[in-house]
């Protein structure tokens, strides 16, 4: 079984002297270049991307610029970045592709409100429906035609059109788009055909959100925590969970709405669920007890079982051994790993931004395909999610010169830089690593990363508590050189986006990246895609024997991943990092003056959430 297709020859490599990442969706040229902007907005994780003649030239999430996590606004800054990167303005854009159809969504909202529907609610729903098109005009300044793409079609295209597969089976799973919560499709020659859909209220995403809120985590943010918590528990509540969510015929399944509150976006469950579970919901900040862990485990298993079953159904429906997954639920890397291992697909592609932020990529691909009439050369695989802004070493040098920060200049001395950083990591230092274009999607993949030695058992606790200020139970991921993958992990195909978990081999001795159940959510590093990061892994291997690093996103709890050097410096100052590598510059902690720390540490205090020590007993 192979995770992603091996035909990397189709990858478009950056041009000489640049680090830009490009993916051809369809290279059919017209008289002049065609610009399609994909937009996801007015929901969590707003984002924008730009296709130039079918080539994905830029993509970014709004939160990275606004510094508001999961920013739900119209992504004006992200759009501006994409245009700036391409050297064009909104005037030049041929189409905006919006990643949902507001009118359909309005209909669904009205349906949801039906029992209590009144005039005010109708007006509000209509106003929300108008808002997307209005804001594309009034906020983004776009004058041309707007094409709205069904949300799940956008998700499907975001996986298939960038997968590099000629054909594939596609499954999209999230809370809800317009009406659809899950879709089964087949992809061929750049187009996607839907086979079957599951409609609201039956939703795996809403089920998971309900459990997330029941466990006292924030919906659309804390789902990772439920997944991370699950291995600490036992599936003692699985039967009860199956009463809430269970399979149906074909691709269908049933979510019992007696237990789910469809109207409440923060507390997605009803009193009936409390009665069913027999313990009260956990309040935010409250200790995590055994019952919470069991609930997380049980919900996770129910979702895994269902996804495996439905992927089998899809396999039987579509004549393909390739699977594309997208939608918020496809961020569940544990489930993804099980689908791959237990299912019948030979290859699987999950985009780096499988959630709503990534839907803009799919919408743009669909619209580009419509505008060009399809056809054209085969798409190539999106090999790297580094589609965001970058800063040159010279720019960073100018920045540092205006500050009191003492930094060591390694411009033109990459070998020395790599050697120095590898030694620091081998010495147990925790490093902020800022290099190249910012990643698109929730994962830091070696461009805006915090790196550390995975062999040190205390590293997980140190980084969670002292650096990231988050719950101690949350696991960290390893980044491994692609060539050394099988030596440490039970996996034989590349996993560039950290979207799947696998077992860590016995005796691998990677305690800080091995979760309590012996799994790891790994990233494989291809030296052709990420040459500097690969060199760092090799240098670390030369010193320690391990081409593996702990890799976590460069941010603190509840903050977006850093974007600019200023963001990185501030995070470095506030977090307990030992050193910061800003492109070719190394800044050590003692390079910061006391006054600098006073000035930069200002802002709201970030404290580690309270979690019972019992959770860690099995660590």
């Amino acid at each position: 079984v192979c995770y992603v297709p091996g035909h990397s020859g189709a990858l478009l490599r950056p041009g000489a002297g640049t680090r830009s990442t490009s993916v051809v969706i369809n290279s059919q040229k017209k008289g002049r270049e065609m610009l399609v902007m994909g937009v996801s907005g007015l929901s969590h994780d707003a984002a924008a991307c730009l296709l130039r003649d079918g080539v994905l030239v830029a993509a970014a999430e709004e939160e990275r610029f606004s510094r508001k996590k999961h920013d739900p606004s119209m992504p004006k800054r992200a759009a501006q970045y994409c245009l700036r990167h391409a050297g064009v303005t909104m005037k030049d854009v041929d189409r905006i592709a919006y990643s949902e159809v507001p009118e359909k969504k309005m209909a669904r909202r009205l349906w949801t409100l039906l029992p209590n529907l009144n005039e005010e609610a109708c007006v509000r729903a209509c106003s929300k429906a108008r808002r997307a098109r209005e804001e594309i005009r009034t906020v983004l300044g776009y004058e041309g035609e707007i094409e709205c793409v069904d949300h799940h079609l956008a998700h499907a295209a975001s996986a298939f059109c960038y997968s590099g597969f000629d054909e594939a089976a596609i499954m999209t799973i999230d809370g809800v788009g317009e009406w659809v919560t899950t879709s089964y499709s087949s992809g061929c020659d750049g187009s996607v055909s839907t086979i079957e859909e599951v409609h609201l209220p039956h939703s795996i995403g809403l089920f998971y959100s309900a459990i997330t809120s029941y466990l006292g985590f924030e919906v659309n943010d804390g789902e990772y925590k439920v997944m991370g918590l699950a291995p600490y528990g036992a599936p003692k509540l699985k039967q009860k969970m199956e009463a809430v969510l269970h399979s149906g015929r074909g691709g269908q399944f049933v979510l019992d709405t007696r237990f789910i509150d469809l109207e409440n976006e923060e507390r997605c469950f009803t009193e009936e669920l409390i009665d069913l579970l027999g313990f009260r919901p956990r309040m935010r900040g409250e200790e995590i007890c055994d019952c919470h862990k069991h609930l997380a485990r049980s919900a996770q298993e129910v979702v895994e079982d269902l996804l495996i079953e439905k992927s089998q159904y899809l396999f039987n429906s579509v004549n393909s051994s390739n699977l594309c997954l997208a939608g918020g639920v496809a961020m569940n890397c544990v489930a993804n790993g099980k689908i791959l291992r237990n299912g019948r697909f030979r290859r699987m592609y999950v985009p780096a931004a499988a959630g709503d932020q990534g839907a803009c990529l799919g919408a743009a691909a669909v619209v580009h395909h419509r505008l060009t009439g399809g056809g054209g050369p085969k798409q190539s695989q999106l090999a790297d999610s580094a589609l965001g802004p970058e800063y040159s070493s010279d720019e960073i040098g100018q920045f540092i010169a205006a500050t009191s920060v003492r930094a060591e200049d390694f411009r033109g001395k990459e070998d020395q830089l790599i050697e120095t950083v590898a030694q620091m990591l081998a010495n147990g230092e925790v490093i902020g690593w800022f290099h190249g274009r910012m990643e698109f999607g929730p994962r830091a993949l070696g461009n805006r990363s915090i790196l550390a030695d995975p062999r040190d058992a205390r590293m997980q606790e140190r980084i969670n508590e002292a650096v990231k200020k988050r719950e101690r139970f949350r696991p960290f991921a390893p980044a491994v050189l692609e060539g050394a993958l099988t030596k440490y992990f039970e996996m034989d195909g590349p996993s560039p986006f950290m979207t799947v978990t696998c077992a860590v081999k016995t005796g691998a001795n990677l305690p800080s990246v091995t979760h309590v159940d012996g799994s790891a959510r790994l990233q494989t590093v291809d030296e052709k895609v990420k040459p500097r990061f690969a060199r760092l892994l090799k240098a670390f291997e030369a010193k320690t024997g391990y081409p593996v690093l702990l890799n976590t996103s460069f941010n603190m709890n509840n903050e977006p991943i850093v974007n600019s050097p200023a963001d990185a410096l501030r995070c470095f100052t506030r977090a307990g990092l030992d050193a910061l590598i800003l492109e070719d510059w190394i800044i050590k902690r003692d390079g910061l003056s006391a006054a600098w720390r006073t000035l930069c540490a200002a802002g709201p205090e970030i404290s580690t959430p309270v979690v019972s020590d019992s959770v860690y007993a099995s660590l």
Partner: protein
Amino acid sequence: MIPLNPEILNRAETFAAQLIRVSPGRFRQLLSRGNREEGSDPLSSAWSALRLASRRSLPDNQIKDLGREADAVDQTNRNSMSRHSNASASRETDLATSNAVQKVGVWWRDKGDDTAPFVRNAAPGEEELWARTEYITPKGAKRRVVLIGESVARGFMYDSEFNCAMALTELMRSAVGSNEVEIVDLAKSGMDYGELRRILSESEVLCPDAYVVFAGNNWQMSLRPDCEAVIEKLRHRDSWEDAANSRERTDNAVKSVVEQLREISERLCVPIIFVIPGFNSKDWMSYRGWRDPLLSGVRSKEWRRLRSLNDQAQGHVPRQAVIAEAIAALNGGVPFALETMALAANGPEGSALAERLIDEAGEMCTRLPFPTPARCSARCRSSLREACKRNAIIVVDMARECTAYMSGQLPDRRLFLDFCHLTADGIWLAMACTVKRLLETWQLPQPSPVVTNELVNKVAPRVHSQAHFKAAIVNADRDQPLEIVKYHCLEAIRHSPDMLELLTLFAESHSRKVPISMCRSSEVLLAHAEKFPVFSKLRESGGIGDKRPNFLLIEGISRAVAEFDGERATQIDNIVRAEHGISDAETDLLRSDYCDVIAARSDWAWWEHSSFLSTREPDSRFYLVCCESCEVKLRLVCRVPNDTIEAEALAVEINGREVQRVKVTKRWAQYQITIPGEFVIPGINKMTLQWPEPLVGEQGKWDGVVAAYQQVMAEDSAPTPSIFYPVYGELLKLCASRCITPNPMR
């Protein structure tokens, strides 16, 4: 050594005990603050009181125990609260919602315990707004004067190192001795009309022997018009002035508050002195863009033409005045025109006409449908005078006192730091007049105080220096003339030569693209925070979002510094050019650094909500920094709200000279414009885009203003200027780059 006055010691002990009980958190804060404030005025610091208490009855280790006890009590409270649903609830919040406490503003005590002091307990957002009075003890033998007022009373820009309460204390002590009178400062910056009335009621419990109320500037802002009534009048095509209905509102507000004062005065049998604020008539200029929102298209066009002529006549006051008269005749709702005329009318001996014109300009500001800088309008002043006279409230009329102090001249920068906030001279003057009235009322035979140099010099030079530094920032922020900004910078340096270096560093910190919190110069400034506490604010600049340097301020600093040290000034100019100078690559002029929307508050922070600048001003202003005189290439993507104005064009001006006119359309279109090198000066250039007049018919104007009022009503928010004016033009892109290398022969 602090004298051990038994009365103070008794009070201090009581205070310490009460404080621990009422607000242990506050007690702990005071302990820690006290460590930093050691040696300050023993009566002004709660810490000193605690120290005194400890000297008498508590050894050092016991005062530490008190602190520990406070911590323990505080912790117990916190634990207790965290067990309940709202884990973050503080004891302070608890107190605020409890019926068991008595409150005066932000000062609290247990109800029923008249021997307890009121302890300051301000919410985080209000901490800096209220007077620093840490506690108010029960009234003793001294006569008690309660001071209530707005930022003017707080001594904005001087506070907390000097303010009206301190001046009043000093003057009263000089007049009647230190043990005779105490001043209780309850002033609050931004205190609005409603808050004033509330605190007047609450403060009766303090048993004052006299009140001093120094307020009126903020009333226009807080007395918003009845939107429904305005809409109704507009629908009936009433004139703008009638629709705004400001006179009636002012009169009613004044009547209500003065009647309340009379009731208090009668009930407590105490005199009340109302200090009616003055205004910086000579040096303050209202924003040039403010106008009647119903100005018709034709008149609006003429108004713009005249305003442009007025700008060209800069420095020729008589000519400006003639143009201003034409503007005023065209449309009475333009404050800056009348202010210009007043300047012309203000002769060496002063002029009643100038005063009248300034008053009228102020009235116009109050009629605008959005908040303008605080001022007590002429109508408000006259209404106050009459109402106070009718209700036996004693008045200190600062407008008149200032004119008298200035020997008949219009009040200017000598008495005002900005539009209404007083210099130290102004504060002493206001309080000297107040003391005079108090002495008369109390029939005390002491001579009335006069403002002398000796008095003014009681304020430390560094305090003056810091106030002028703040004034430079405030004036630049309000788009006042460069000469005023420079004046305050010069004064800052004159009072404290250290400021020469610090202003240079501040200009650097402000000019660099690096966030302020990360700039090397900010660290040096922070090291001077002990002497100049204003720099401690840098600690709060931890954000790294868009930086918005004010080039007017930077230029003001540079020019002031140049008068003392040309090298430093060159250093500032070089930094500005290095950081912001245009190059062969395009510089985005729509970035917050270069887009001058500070004056045009209608466009404030447009980039927060839109990808393009939608201007409701007839002109959009930008700063263009050039390292030398060179041709500049502009790339402009813009549009106008409708394309029916075939004959109209967008005019691009640089440093007041028109460069080119381009026909603009309803849809985005890109234009390339070359600015000849001879138009460009090395350093900071001012570029203006003059938009064509939008075609909004009479009906459209009325409908637009009605819609704006409806928006204000719907959102229940403070109205912003933008909603009352039509869109003139929209900018999607404005980039500048160096066209060619400069001609060495030029």
